[in-house]
């Protein structure tokens, strides 16, 4: 089963993402910040990482960088969830090794379309 790691400090958004993905048959691992996300990604190999950018503790950009430095996550798709104002964040995310981004706010359908796009 395809496993997706959803990292967001906002419970509601994370739950929405997790619920949407689970409804579509993905297995979802949730994490509340970068540190938690890194720990969970190390504990289980996931097929896709979705991470918020602004989080207390380790932020999303650092998480991307940390993940990319792990041998098991060199090619794993990682999407950052940014807001429309975050052009800088997109560039930063890409520089850190993110695959792409999803612009907030997004609907469940948009989320699924994007996930499908990276997972096929």
């Amino acid at each position, binding site marked *: 089963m395809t496993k997706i790691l959803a990292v967001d*400090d*906002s*419970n*509601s*958004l994370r*739950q*929405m993402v997790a*619920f*949407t993905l689970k*409804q*579509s048959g993905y297995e979802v691992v949730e994490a509340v910040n970068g540190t938690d996300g890194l720990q969970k990604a190390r504990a289980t190999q996931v097929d896709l990482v979705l991470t918020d950018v*602004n*989080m*207390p503790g380790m932020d999303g950009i650092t998480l991307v960088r940390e993940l*990319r430095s792990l041998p098991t996550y*060199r*090619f*794993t*798709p*990682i999407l950052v*969830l940014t*807001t429309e*104002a975050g*052009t*800088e964040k997109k560039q930063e995310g*890409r520089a850190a*090794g*993110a*695959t*792409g*981004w999803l612009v*907030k*706010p*997004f*609907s*469940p*359908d*948009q989320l*699924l*379309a994007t996930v499908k*796009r*990276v997972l*096929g």
Partner: protein
Amino acid sequence: MSIDISQFIQTFLEESFEGLDSMESLLLSLTSDDSESINAIFRAAHSIKGGAGTFGFSEVARFTHGVETLLDEARAGRRAVTTEMIALLLESVDCIHAMLEAARDGSPVDAARIATIGAAIEASLRTVDHVMLDSKTVDSKVLDTQLPEAAANSHAAAQGPHGWRIVFIPEQDVMRSGNDPLRLIAALRELGVLQVACNTSALPPFEDLNAEDCYLSWEMTLLGEVNREAILEIFEWVEGQCELIVEPLSASAEVVDEMVDEVPHGDNNSAQACPNQSLQASGSEPPSLSVSASASSSAKPAARNRADNGSIRVNTDKIDALINMVGELVITQSMLSQMGSHLQTGDINYCIEGLLEGLAQLERNTRELQENVMSIRMLPISFAFNRFPRMIHDLSASLGKQLKLKLSGEHTELDKNVLEKITDPLVHLVRNAVDHGIESPDVRLAAGKPAVGTVHLNAYHKGGNIVIEITDDGAGLNRQRILAKAVERRLIPAGQSITDEQIHDLIFAAGFSTAEVVSDVSGRGVGMDVVRKNIKALGGSVEVQSRDGLGSTFIIRLPLTLSIMDGQLIGVSGESYVIPLISIVESLQVREDSVKSVASRGMVYRLRDEYIPVLFLHELLGIRSPDTKQLTESLLVVVEADGQRAALVVDDLLGQQQVVIKALETNFKKVGGLSGATILGDGTVALILDVSGLISLSRQITGPARSIHPEENKAA
């Protein structure tokens, strides 16, 4: 697929209110160079905006966007943090709070205020902060925002005529960003009929080939009425990591055909990084990637139920601890059942020993589990304290007093229910301390005190209670004025001498206020009686200590939790009752010579140097068939509540145990003299006695109104 996201609105609202609270408290303590705090405030606003957009609260999202931008500029050092800005942000926090509350409850909002604040934010966003202006940041900003927009505009005009020629030459490390050319090509295929030619000319000799690099490039023709933007969107994520040419087909159609012929087929080396399925692809499905804007409308805040469903956020550590404990419980259970099966076959003595050991373990497990389950409901009192910095800030402005707030013991935990119900009384007491206690700066200076008055909120655990103290260094309670007011109100007769405690008690009397000028803040005389009533309803007490000219301290004592307590089981006329252990002073055998009758109004018991009224429980509880023992065969349980003592006559002391408190109000109503009921080990119900309620019941009965219960009168 349609996903109902309204189910997450409750969570969103909860975390947003928490976020607003932390924004507020951070704003109140913000200094211009505190980048950590600014970041945290920004993050909170950012989260609220993101969630509001997602869950369909577009007004909130729009409003918060301005706030977020302001904070983003401050965080990036492009805007100085001024007191005006903090004030504006505080106002904004209130607005967002009101808007979310309105969304939750369907209540009206102060649209005018929100519009005003919103306009103020817009206005301050327009004023570029020249002091902080830095040519470099401005340049990059312009680049960031304008370029894509300009590009988008030109693309919008270019509608695909028949098809597109697309040349895609990714950089070698493209896959290290998790982007897979195969996926991009697959996405293109969904837009129309796609012909793909793979160029392998850049492939190095096998021994130099790095399997993690991409050496291939592609030339494609995409046939169909396809929007150029849709193509660019697919390559959006690899922009800057590839060379990309997208041009209308008409000009170069022939060239492409030639190239397709030239492509070398069946190169084994290319299989690693190249889509190894048929390159001759045809799009079959209609474009499904077009982002539907209507989808978000499903997120209408439909869940407009009055939202506090009484949920609670629990630290995962606490949950992990619980899971561990349940694990231990399971081990104990299997150990016990093993012992049970041994009983039939094995050594009885050995089994009994094992069973006893298992039971002891079970008891330990149960207690630990209970304590931990209870701790889930425990929240730090900072949830209640957090509102005071703002309140003091506002009061200081409106009353023209200089104030400082000191908080300590914020991490002291108490039950969520108690916490929720104590907040209002605390607000009242703090307002009172500021309004009545703290003097104006000139008065303070004249009295030789610092101009700035201090209010100190302190919380700590003591025994099974939490104690909250509200201390001010103001003038203290004005004994003369309280006395005069009490006489005027005919609460006490003129000329009577009363103790300090009685004076202090007066301020809790209904309708009592000594404020000379009724201010907005307090002084309407509604309040202190309500404060005491609310605290009592929580099973707590409040008292005041005051020193003239030095200030006063209100001390609130509350039980840590409302749902479990230590109780003493007693028997009265064949029924079992529970007395809260905390109100028991001592239990003793009746000594006949210590019982005195007082003017036919009742009995008192002489305990050392004190005369304590004797309460016959069977009489107070109206037990219909009093199977009462002689007083000398009975026991006395001396109890204390609200500083008053009484000796309860009981038949038996049956043992102490923790009891889970069940409200009688759930299916019946409050009953005088009882604080609730509990379920005993055998499944029967035992009533929990409310000591202060019993004492006031006894006053009603021993007073002239004794004829309410004529038959019990005779029995007594």
